[in-house]
């Protein structure tokens, strides 16, 4: 195979380098990489051990707190329940990780629980609960030492772990031994996770704590513990976990190198993982750089071999080309380096010759450049013209100035018409100027030559020219437009200054007045001559204090500007308000040169403003603050009193007997009276208190800074006194008084409007109680009234929506086995609270009129039911309960008659009214009369709850009740309590003696019934017979019921 020398040279060199590189790589791979890998794995295992130790410390810390508590409890000779609670609560609150601390008795029942302060309201939920199904608690008692649990769902609904330890509890009564208990502390997994997070702070380490089941106990992301995630499926955790191990595992789509270490006593495992890409980053980067370096070295070797062989062949040819270039005038052509001595020396001579030529050319160019720069750098346009006034050269400023280039025209004569704005005037000026030109400089007038540029802009010119000895003309052109404009602007400013409506004053930096205008003299009264040289103090009024001026100067120094209102004094001593605007003027160095003050006289405006404000906030008659201002002050006072921790009082005053005064003596006298009383009341208030008139003869006062409510009593007395003092008006002596309502803030919580309303309510109270007095608003009663009103509204709504129902409890004759009647009992089918017994709503409205409405509803509903049952063939009397209020309401008989009339199908004797004994206490005569009136209608009566009051015998004598009901409390207790038995016996005896029937309530068992039969009471009702039931079930029950055999046997 035939190849060029160049090819063989390149191949040889490349192969040599490649062999060297490959040997180095093999050595490194064989030795370095395995070693690095081992290092990383070892490091990981160490990390895991450290983590396990630290977790162990953390848990030991936790358990030692429980140890201390255990010692504390066990070491006491005796311990009360309260003491135990305090002890466990204290520990639970002090330890942030503790969710709850349970004390279990020997049966694994919770006898006490310690909770952090915020969780204690629900302690009752946890007391008494049974822990027996918790394996770890049992285990701790059995092995007699601490046992850690796995994660579990706690009674408070969180995933937790717990530590249990045996506890000897010295809670005992006399003669008992201490309780063999267990203490269980539930540890919050967020706390464990926070600790795992601390161990994972290095960004490439993940520390996880796992329980025996592989559930997460602690993880830097606490959520994974709180969600009880399970890591048991990780490869690393597959085998035995009771000794440290290392390996690889995948988690969250990431490859980890990890190690596990058992955590001492807990049986848990600490897992420390490092993402493999991070752990092996160094190994990988070493490999990558090795590969890259080798590849690069190989590439370099190939390229340099190629280049070297090529360059050898090229050198001779290059030198020949160089010679050719120099010969062709290219003196810069570089000398090719051949590396051959002879060729090099020849090339050096060529180089020095070319160098000499180059140097001379450069010097010439430099001189030319200097002169060109000089001419081009001056701001004026410069033109050189030959003796026939043709342009020889013109600088750049010339072209800029005119906007035309000198090359555009043949000579100066053609130039002027091209550029002049005002041809006629300029031509004349130019002619004059040209005439003056000789050996000296000649200048043309500034005002006369105006040019117009191609862009339309006009400029004023000043032209100077000089005839040179060789007859050529050198002309310079200066732009004087700006200078002329400044002159005009100055004239205009001067005119504004003197004609302005605002006063203007200019001072030196030290305040000396240097300039004032005519308006200044008109406003202040000082003439120009009087003002100049003075200090602005001549108009100072003294109304503004030193602080005011200090802040004004601060603003002037900082921002160079101040704006505001000043009260000044004019030459004749009168005050005037000036809206003033001061500006500092600085020199080039930034130092204040002058101050310029502009001001306008706003005295008139201020006066209007003041009048308007007064009208808006003050009562025109009495001059007192009006409602608007009062509301504002009250709000401010409320904020202030809150801040100071003091109270304030809001007083609502209304004059008693003012209207008659107005009617009798006329409005003038009335107004005069209001003015005088207002002034007197204002005089007796303390500093800081406010009184205002809010309309007619009504006033509101706000008393502030009260430490205690009684602090305001002296003021109240003084106000009452001030209002009631006799008053001579137009020859009459008039006397009025005041009624005052008072409420206190913040005791009365509300906004300003509510406070005034409450004070108003209290004032009406004062009026009702006889005027000329004060009355304090009762916050507690107000709330109670509101609550009762809600309940009453609820009941009225329930009546309207038909939510009440009657349940019926049967009354039976034990001897004959017959059902002798039913007692109607009200229930409220509440849409949210379910079925409510009467005790849930009746006691609260006992004294309210709505109780009568309910009572009537009950009678009506019972009568309707009687009708329904009669249609079904069930004809038994029904009794309803009657309260005192209903009975003594005045219209009871008439209402009853109307209700009976509405149910003509029901015989009147089927309705029985049960009167609560307590209800009949007050006026026996009236009750008795009423009962006789009702008996006439055919209805009968029973005395309910008989035996519970004091005057049973009196009632029995005077009230025509056919039936006595023995109260259920006695019946229930009669089997055990001889006193109860005696009362039951007594009532049965009384009934017999007075010829009344007797019925026992609260019969719960067969035994009750038997005993009552023994005593001679055959009529009974109670749960032992039947509970109250819906009306629909009653007929079926009646058909079904049979008395107990024991009773029939007894009879």
């Amino acid at each position: 195979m035939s190849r060029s020398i160049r090819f063989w040279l390149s191949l040889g060199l490349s192969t040599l380098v490649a062999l060297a590189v490959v040997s180095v790589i093999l050595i490194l791979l064989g030795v370095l990489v395995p070693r690095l890998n081992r290092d990383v794995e070892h490091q990981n295992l160490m990390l895991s051990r450290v983590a396990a130790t630290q977790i162990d410390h953390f848990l030991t810390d936790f358990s030692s707190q429980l140890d201390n508590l255990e010692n504390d409890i066990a070491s006491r000779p005796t311990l009360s329940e309260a003491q135990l609670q305090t002890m466990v609560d204290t520990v639970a609150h002090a330890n942030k990780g503790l969710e709850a601390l349970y004390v279990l008795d020997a049966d694994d029942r919770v006898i006490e629980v310690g909770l952090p302060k915020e969780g204690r309201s629900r302690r009752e939920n946890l007391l008494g609960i049974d822990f027996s199904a918790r394996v770890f608690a049992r285990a701790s008692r059995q092995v007699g030492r601490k046992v850690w649990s796995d994660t579990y769902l706690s009674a408070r609904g969180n995933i937790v772990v717990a530590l249990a330890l045996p506890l000897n509890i010295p809670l005992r009564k006399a003669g008992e031994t201490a309780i063999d208990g267990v203490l269980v502390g539930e540890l919050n997994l967020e706390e464990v996770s926070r600790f795992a997070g601390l161990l994972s702070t290095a960004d490439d380490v993940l520390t996880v704590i796992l329980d025996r089941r592989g559930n997460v106990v602690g993880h830097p992301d606490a959520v994974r513990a709180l969600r009880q995630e399970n890591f048991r499926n990780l490869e690393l955790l597959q085998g035995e976990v009771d000794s440290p191990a290392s390996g690889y595992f995948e988690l969250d789509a990431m490859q980890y190198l990890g190690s596990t270490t058992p955590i001492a006593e807990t049986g848990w495992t600490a897992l420390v993982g490092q993402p493999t890409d991070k752990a092996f980053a160094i190994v990988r980067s070493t490999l990558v750089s090795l590969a890259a370096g080798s590849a690069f070295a190989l590439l370099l070797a190939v390229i340099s071999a190629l280049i070297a062989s090529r360059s050898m062949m090229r050198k001779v040819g290059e030198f020949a080309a160089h010679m050719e270039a120099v010969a062709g005038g290219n003196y810069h052509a570089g000398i090719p380096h051949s590396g051959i001595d002879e060729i090099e020396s020849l090339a050096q001579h060529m180089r020095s010759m070319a160098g000499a030529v180059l140097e001379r050319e450069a010097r010439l160019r430099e001189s030319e450049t200097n002169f060109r720069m000089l001419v081009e750098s001056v701001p004026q346009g410069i033109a050189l013209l030959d003796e026939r006034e043709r342009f020889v050269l013109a600088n750049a400023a010339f072209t800029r100035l005119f906007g035309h280039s000198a090359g555009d025209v043949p000579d100066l004569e053609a130039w002027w018409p091209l550029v002049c704005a005002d041809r006629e005037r300029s031509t004349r000026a130019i002619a004059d100027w040209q005439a003056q030109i000789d050996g000296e400089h000649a200048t043309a007038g500034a005002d006369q030559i105006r040019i117009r540029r191609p862009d339309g802009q006009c400029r004023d010119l000043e032209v100077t020219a000089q005839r040179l000895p060789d007859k050529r003309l050198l002309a310079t052109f200066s732009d004087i437009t700006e200078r002329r404009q400044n002159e005009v602007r100055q004239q205009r400013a001067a005119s504004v200054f003197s004609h302005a409506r605002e006063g203007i004053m200019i001072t030196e930096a030290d305040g000396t007045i240097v300039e004032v205008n005519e308006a200044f003299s008109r406003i202040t009264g000082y003439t120009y001559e009087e003002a100049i040289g003075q200090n602005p103090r001549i108009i100072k009024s003294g109304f503004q204090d030193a602080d005011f001026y200090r802040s004004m100067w601060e603003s002037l120094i900082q921002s160079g500007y101040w704006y505001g209102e000043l009260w000044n004094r004019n030459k004749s001593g009168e005050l005037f308000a000036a809206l003033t605007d001061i500006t500092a003027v600085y020199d080039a160095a930034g130092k204040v040169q002058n101050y310029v003050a502009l001001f306008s006289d706003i005295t008139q405006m201020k006066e209007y403003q003041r009048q308007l404000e007064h009208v808006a906030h003050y009562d025109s008659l009495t001059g007192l603050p009006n409602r608007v201002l009062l509301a504002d002050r009250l709000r401010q006072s409320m904020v202030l009193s809150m801040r100071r921790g003091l109270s304030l009082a809001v007083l609502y005053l209304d004059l008693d007997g003012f209207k008659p005064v107005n009617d009798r003596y006329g409005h003038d006298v009335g107004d005069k009276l209001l003015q005088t009383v207002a002034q007197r009341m204002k005089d007796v208030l303390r500093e800081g208190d406010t009184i205002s008139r809010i309309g007619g003869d009504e006033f509101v006062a706000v008393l502030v800074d009260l430490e205690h409510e009684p602090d305001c009593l002296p003021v109240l007395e003084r106000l009452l006194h001030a209002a009631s003092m006799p008053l001579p008006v137009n020859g009459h002596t008039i006397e009025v008084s005041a009624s005052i309502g008072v409420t206190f803030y913040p005791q009365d919580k509300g906004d300003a409007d509510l406070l005034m309303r409450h004070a108003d309510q209290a004032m009406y109270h004062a009026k009702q109680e006889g005027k000329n007095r004060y009355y304090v608003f009762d916050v507690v009663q107000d709330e109670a009234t509101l609550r009762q009103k809600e309940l009453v509204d609820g009941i009225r709504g329930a009546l309207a929506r038909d939510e009440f129902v009657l349940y019926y409890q049967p009354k039976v004759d034990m001897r004959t086995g017959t059902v002798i009647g039913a007692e109607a009992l009200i229930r409220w089918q509440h849409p949210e609270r379910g079925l409510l017994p009467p005790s849930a709503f009746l006691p609260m409205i006992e004294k309210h009129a709505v109780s009568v409405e309910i009572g009537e509803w009950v009678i009506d509903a019972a009568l309707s039911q009687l009708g329904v049952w009669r249609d079904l063939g069930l004809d038994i009397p029904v009794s309803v309960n009657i309260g005192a209020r209903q009975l003594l309401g005045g219209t009871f008989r008439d209402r009853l008659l109307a209700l009976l009339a509405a149910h003509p199908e029901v015989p009147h004797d089927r309705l029985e009214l049960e009167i609560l004994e307590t209800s009949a206490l007050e006026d026996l005569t009236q009750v008795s009369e009423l009962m006789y009136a009702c008996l006439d209608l055919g209805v009968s009566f029973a005395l309910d709850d008989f035996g519970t009051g004091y005057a049973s015998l009196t009632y029995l004598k005077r009230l025509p009740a056919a039936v006595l009901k023995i109260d259920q409390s006695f019946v229930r207790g009669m089997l055990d309590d001889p006193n109860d038995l005696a009362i039951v016996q007594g009532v049965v005896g009384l009934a017999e003696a007075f010829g009344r029937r007797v019925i026992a309530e609260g019969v719960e068992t067969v035994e009750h019934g038997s005993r009552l039969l023994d005593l001679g009471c055959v009529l009974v009702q109670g749960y032992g017979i039947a509970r109250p039931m819906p009306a629909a079930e009653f007929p079926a029950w009646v058909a079904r019921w049979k008395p107990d055999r024991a009773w029939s046997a007894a009879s």
Partner: protein
Amino acid sequence: MINAIVKNCLWLLALAAVLVGCSPREPIRIGFIGGVSGRVADLGISGRNGAALAIEMRNKAGGVNGRMVELIVEDDVQDEEVAKQAVARLIDRKVEAIIGPMTSAMAMACVPRANEAQMLMVSPTVSTTELSGRDDYFLRVISPTSEYAHKIADYQYTTQGLRRIAVAYDLRNKAYSASWLADYRAAFAAHGGEVVMTEPYLSGDDTDFARMAETLLRSQSDAVLVIANSVDTAMLAQQLRKRDAAIRIATSEWAATERLTELGGKAVEGMTIAQFLDRDSQAPAYQAFRKAYVERFALEPGFGGVTAFDAANVVLDALAAKKEGQPLKQAILERRVFAGVQSEIRFDAAGDARRETYMTTIRNGTFVRLP
């Protein structure tokens, strides 16, 4: 020569391109939503575990048509807003279907959003009748509440001879508890029994179980029925039995997790529950599943674990079987019958399923089937 170098570089580039192309295919994503923290966490966690186990087993067997499956878990915290946002996140992540939610109230909040996005939801445990019979994107693998309510009402009236029942129910999961209560009330009334008191409450750390227990006992009913999660049921049972050791207690299937017995201890002994999980089942599929679950999590699967495992398998089977371009829902309703670990799951046209239900009680800390 230069040309030769350029050619070599091009060859290297081509090799690199081939290597990149070999990276594994994107996994199939399936979402899970449930309350995996807080008071209902036992149900949420067992559900999440069941779904995760189904997917881990499927991946070990080669995935769905060669693609791995990834489960994305979201916690609804039992808050409607949180649940809606979680579903929106799952939709954004382009999951194929969502397993969950685990409670009815959350389902009521999420289902409209899933329907809007035509995202299939297969719930392991939601049983409110409010979602029954709708042709939408919500499917479930258990029967509606009426089944359990009927079963328990029947048992209480006929076998236990109870007539007057007081009920406590959790408004936090009102969609479930109110539906359950209405079914129960009707069933019990049909027999002639009466619900004499209802005590609604809002589940939370500040629930006053002691007061609730007193109120319920004051009704002097024959038994108390609790419709609530396991933690609340256990806590209320503790308070009830503390005051009346003999009071009979029944609860709905929601509480029937292993945590109920752990938390309740002796207080839940003898409690009656109608549920669909037969823990004594000897069916080989159930035994195999239970073994795998216990090995993986060291816990009993409970009903949440079983139904979530079933729900996940329904989705995985349907994904494997569905034809190109066919919606997943259609694939499920076309096949209709799926194997569950305890019994077959039969979907009707509206995507509701039927299962066996059993009466159980708790004896010595474990659920025991009643004859």
